[in-house]
């Protein structure tokens, strides 16, 4: 992931936000969606994505659906009820973080 230290803490929030918007998605689709939305700037690595998805699933925030896709099986993730509530909380937290960072960084930019 580009600038991994900065993005790392927000990966689960990014995943939950995407699932909130798109209903259900599979792993590869999430990596492509992030790439597309950020014009290729942000690249979610496989090694970071799947652990994050599995952690959210184990915490009960994501539910899983398996489906046949051509000649293979596909695992879809979607938000559970508690996952939807958690997404709202995490987004609010992230927005507050962005606001605070802007307030902190802005004065320096104006100099």
């Amino acid at each position, binding site marked *: 992931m580009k600038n991994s230290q900065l993005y790392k803490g927000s990966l689960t929030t990014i995943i939950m936000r995407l699932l909130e918007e798109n209903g259900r998605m599979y*792993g590869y689709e999430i990596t492509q969606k992030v790439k597309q939305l950020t014009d290729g700037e942000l690249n979610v690595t*496989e090694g970071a994505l*799947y652990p994050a998805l599995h952690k959210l699933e*184990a915490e009960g925030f994501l539910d899983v659906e398996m489906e*046949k896709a051509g000649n293979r099986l596909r695992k879809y993730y979607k938000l559970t009820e508690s996952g939807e509530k958690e997404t709202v909380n995490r987004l609010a937290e992230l927005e507050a973080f962005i606001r605070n960072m802007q307030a902190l960084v802005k004065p320096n930019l104006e100099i």
Partner: protein
Amino acid sequence: MNSNNIPNRLIDTIEIEKLYAFTDKHFVPYYDLQTELVDHLANAIEAQWMVTPNLSFEDALAIEFKKFGIFGFTTIVEERQAALSKYYWRKIFREFATFFRFPKIVLMLIMTGVLYRTLLLSSYNNYIVLALFGIMGIVEIVAGYQWCRKIRHQQKVTEKKWLLHDIIRNIYIMIPVMLFANSLNFLFKMAVNGTFGHWQIAIFTIIMVPLGFLEYVRIVKMPALIDQEMARIVKNHQFVK
């Protein structure tokens, strides 16, 4: 269609089998995890073929595998194991917590009282303590052995290995080792040094009764819940042609 108007090349059934074998070779023996990785690799390879249709399957796979980093799939397997263990323990503790609420807490208090009183009145309470540890240890070992037999049978039937099964087996092996191997020396000293005093009995009872209930939840209550969960996982991973 790609830019050359050639129909997009797709992963065929033989290549899917090769991908399963590839994940197995790279230390992912679990079918549930393999399935997810196979679909990911297949999608990524097909995306490469849209740009470079003549790229061989093996070369495309090598490029994609590189993206998983120097540890390959290892990190994903480890993190998945950690997540599933957490999930399993959370289920146990949720059930265990019900023993601290009415009406089950009454049973817990009665058993604590009975054990405390018995140990207090007995002149050989050190042997009772040893016997209780022994019984718990034997129950753990027997339950662990039965679990191992059961998963071996299920793996034979489904012809697949499942991560949740292995995690529970590891816990069955880990607990007796942790609980008993570490306390053998301590228990031996206790047996030799004679009977327990008032405070030792109180502390032992407060620890032992909840531990017994925790063992009950793990060994008696959990297998049914895990069977339900496994039935769901296996059903989800059945491929309908």
